[in-house]
């Protein structure tokens, strides 16, 4: 079976964390395995933080969900996704009304290759009840299965 999400999402990049002291740490946590396994350079999370400082949290696309990403040229080595739950909701500056538990980090290698996969992932990202379900999962294996089998 051609599973687009499985092609992008390695089990090693699915993690559940207890809490993050602030939104900067949350971004570092969510991108840590991507840096460690060589999918992005250390510049990638740095850029996400820099852009956030300038423009605000541009990736809060739905209730309880952040789609973290920077540009391919900001440090993407290999295309990949990371999926993280931070059990204690993370609050972003000026977005106090939307604390977030579910984080999807997108590492795109160009502007188009990932679109088909994103269209599939949209079934989750555009469905509040599914976001809520994923954000409440505390076992990384269960979280992986839930998303990879969309």
């Amino acid at each position, binding site marked *: 079976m051609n599973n687009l999400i499985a092609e992008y999402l390695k089990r090693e990049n699915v993690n559940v964390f207890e809490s993050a002291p602030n939104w900067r740490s949350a971004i570092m946590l969510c991108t840590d395995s991507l840096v460690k396994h060589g999918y992005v350079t250390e510049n990638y999370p740095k850029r996400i933080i820099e*852009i956030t400082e300038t*423009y*605000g949290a*541009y*990736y809060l*696309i*739905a*209730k309880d969900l952040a*789609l973290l*990403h*920077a*540009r391919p040229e900001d440090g993407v080595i290999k295309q990949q996704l990371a999926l993280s739950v931070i059990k204690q909701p993370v609050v972003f500056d000026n977005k106090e009304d939307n604390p977030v538990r579910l984080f999807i980090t*997108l590492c*795109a290698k160009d*502007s188009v290759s*990932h*679109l088909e996969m*994103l*269209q599939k992932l*949209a079934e989750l*990202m*555009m469905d509040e009840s599914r976001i809520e379900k994923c954000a409440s999962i505390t076992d990384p294996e269960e979280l992986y299965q839930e998303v990879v089998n969309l």
Partner: protein
Amino acid sequence: MEIKRILCCCMSGLGSSFLVEMNVKKFFKKNGITDVEVDHAGVYDATKGAADLFICSADIKEECEKAGPTVPLNRLTDYDELEGKLKEYFEVKTA
């Protein structure tokens, strides 16, 4: 004003703007609108003449307004919000 081309914009043009484009296409399909082109891009591509209507996240509203008529969305993935706002520009089929 006749709208022939819509550009959905977000900060990078990689993710969220594509989700908005999907919802705009869903709206057009639902209402039998076939003669409007929809695309997505980063905010730096939102320039005068690039489209007749720009749809973006509320965060980058000011930038898009410099390029032309703009529909800002508070929740990018919220189809109902988008539909409510597009109704001001397009004729919709009544159920």
